[in-house]
Every structure is written in structure tokens, then in C-alpha cells.
């Protein structure tokens, strides 16, 4: 749900249901890092409702596109985290095997 002026696409508040700090803080982080954004923040109107309001103000680009781009970047970051983590776990497992073999061969 997007609340904003019809004429001005660059400032808007997005109201997301069924979300909380988990997604909102992460999206706020990626939004802030975007150079097109002048202001961004999020608030939770009431803790019993699962609803988050994300406010985006940009330097002219439509706020919807900027939010989409930030979510896209967050997705790419997550994918990179996953692949790096999988590789690190594999490296750790092989190095453990090598260690175990070294200890066996020493004995």
C-alpha cells in the first residue's frame, strides 16, 4: 500500500502488512546507502498489528522504483551471503578431514 501525493512521485510512505523489524531494518539499511535517497525510515504504528510503514524521499526518482531497487540489492546480498557461507562450510569440512588424516598418519 503506497500513500503519497499524486503529483509528486518522489516521496511516499509504504505500508507493508505481516512484516516487522526483521525486513524493515534491513530494507532501511539498503535504502540509506542508495545515493538517490534523501530520507528514509520506518516505524511500527502499534506492536500488536503486524504492520510497518516505510518512508522514502528521493532526489526526483519515483520512490516505488527506488524501494524496488533496494529490495533487489538486498536479495543479491543475501544470495552472495548464502554462496560464501556454503563455500566456507565446505572448506572447513575438508580442512577438518585433512587434519584428521594428518593425525591418523602421524600415529
Amino acid at each position, binding site marked *: 500500500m*503506497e500513500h503519497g501525493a499524486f503529483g509528486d512521485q518522489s516521496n511516499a510512505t509504504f505500508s507493508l502488512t505481516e512484516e516487522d*523489524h526483521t*525486513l524493515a531494518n*534491513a530494507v532501511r539499511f539498503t535504502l540509506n546507502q542508495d*545515493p538517490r535517497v534523501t530520507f528514509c525510515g520506518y516505524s511500527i504504528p502499534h506492536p500488536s498489528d503486524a504492520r510497518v510503514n516505510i518512508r522514502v524521499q528521493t532526489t526526483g526518482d519515483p520512490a516505488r522504483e527506488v*524501494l*524496488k531497487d533496494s*529490495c533487489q540489492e538486498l536479495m543479491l546480498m*543475501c544470495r552472495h551471503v*548464502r554462496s560464501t557461507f556454503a563455500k566456507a562450510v565446505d572448506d572447513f569440512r575438508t580442512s577438518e578431514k585433512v587434519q584428521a588424516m594428518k593425525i591418523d598418519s602421524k600415529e
Partner: protein
Amino acid sequence: MAEREETEKKKEAESFSIWDLPDVPQKLPPHIEFQRTRVQCNLDAPIHTENVMYSGAYASMGVDNSLQLDHFCNNFRVEVIRLTKDDMEFDLIGIDAAIANAFRRILIAELPTMAIEKVLIANNTSVIQDEVLAHRLGLIPIIVDPRLFEYMSENDTSNEKNTIVFKLHVLCERGGPRLTVKTNELKWLPNGSELPLETKPDSNPSSKPRTYTSFSSSQDLLPEFSNNPIRPMLDITIARLGPGQEIELEAHAVKGIGKTHAKWSPVATAWYRMLPEIVLLEDVEDEDAEKLVKTCPVNVFDIEDIGSGKKRATVARPRACTLCRECLRCGEEWEKRVSIRRVKDHFIFTIESTGALSPETLFTEAVKILEDKCERVITELS
């Protein structure tokens, strides 16, 4: 050696003058860089705790603070310290606190597991009340991959795709000793419930009686369960029975997430801390060094001999620091000698699993769930 460099950098920062700056600044001056990347833990409270994430924060200096994805991809590292069947400890280096916290929150509250939800009690003559017994059964971890099952909503019937059925029937003999009922007594029923529903007496007497679940096929025909049966975590005490007491019940387990009830949380807990960095700003020698080494309860400091009988303190294990700040309290001017800091983008994650999934699978699933959330927002916006 590292703290020597830090000492030199600090001295450099003090003798810094604007005439030394290059004409086009590429990096931030050292004290600003320190504020951006380290939390300084003073005796009373930490300072510089906020993360400077605004892209134009250093625009007046000409330094771009915006997120470049390739910069993140190049600098991000993961190092696994310990990995066992039930827990793991690993380092995430180069990531921000917002995302690390998102992973932690998802690990605790939004990863699905199977847990007992409905308990049908046929007979309970023990001293444990029905509801207390049902509550205890709900908290038992069930060792099965929750990805093989589907969620069950209120309108669905219980079938073999969304329910696991366990049975418990224990009787303590009269004249025998007291009995401890452990989770080892919970038997898995792969064919579904055995308790019959009350049906009208004029229905066909030769057909199979309807039970509380309608399994169309047996669960142990599935390849995942044929060799390793579904069982709860063993050796957990459920109840204690005196002579003559009996418990007979059937428990149905369904899929859920930790947000609804904590019994569905797949981690015993998951937490992270930032990497501590201890720096000795001045040389600490002789008795001061001995005092420093003795005050630290986790042995962060060590003594090294620098010849001619003099001793100096060094930082041997900064990672073990628990931030108790005892080393700052042991005298008046110790705050000027020891500097305790945290590195803002280096997180030491620890995940302890309850047994259903291995910890590295849990983390991978948590990252996938964050990706799904982003995708949901993107599709809603388009």
C-alpha cells in the same frame, strides 16, 4: 605487533594537520574512520554505536559512503570456527548489523519445525495434570526435516502430509518402584491415529472405523522414513508415575513457526556478538603488567619478556574478551592505557540447534527466507 601499529596510528592522528591532506581526498582521516568502524567501550557506556549508513554522510569530504554491491561482494567473508552436529560458531565479516540481526530474528522466529499441537488423552491417572502434560509434550523437539511436510490450516483434515502421530502408553505396576516416563516411550504411528471417532451406530459395521486422522498411505513407505523412523529427542523426562498410575494418550504434531509459539523454534538459541579489539595505548610494564594480567577473568592479556628483566603486557586473546571492563577498573589511569573496542562489521555468530536440522542448514534456510520476503515486497510493488 598489531597494537604497535595502532599506537603509531593514534600518534599520527594526534599530530594530524589539515595541511597534510592530499588535494583530492580518497579516504577518511583516521579519527573519522575510527568513529565509523569501531564502537569505543568506555567504563560507563559505549560511544559511536550508531552505524553511519547514509550515502551522503561524508559528501563534504568528497568520500562516497554509498553501498556498492561489488564492494560488498569483494569484502564479505565467512570463517567457520566450530561446526558440530548440534551447534556452530562462525564469523561474518563485512556485513552490517541490520542484516545480521535480520538473520538472527529469522533463525529464532520464522524457520518452521514440527511440534506436538493436539494431545488426545485417553487415560491420565498421574499427578501431572492434563494441560501440564500437554504443554510438556509440545515443547519436545521432534527430529524430522520439516521441509518434507506442509502446513495444516484449520479447514484441512489431518493426513500423512501434514501430521505426525505419536502414542504414549505407560503403566506403573502396583508394588513396583516409581517410574520416570521419558520421551523414549513415545512411539511413532506411521499409519495415523488409532483412536476411533464416535460414529453413528447405524453406519456400515464392516468398514474400518474412522479415526481422528485420515492417512491414505503409511508414512514409513516414504523413502526418507523407511530406514530412519521419526522420533522425538531422546532422554527428556515427561512425567513421573507412582504405583498404579497410568498415562495413555495420542499426540499429533504439525508444522509451525516460532512466531506463533516458541515450541516451533528450531534453535535452542542463536546469538551474535561483535569482535572485541583490545589496544594498549601505552606500554604497560613490570608490576602494572602483572596486575593487568591478573585482573582479566578470561586471560586476554599475557606477559612477554623484552630482555634485561623487564616485562611487558601484550594482548594474546582479544576474541575471548567479555567486555567486563575489569581491566579499566583496576586503577585510576587505566582508562588511558587500555582501549576496549568492538569492530562494527565483524559478527561472531553462534547457532545452537535443537536437533531437527543441522545448524548450517538452518542458516541457509534463514537467508532464503529473507530473500523470499524481499521478493514478496517486490511483487507487491509491481
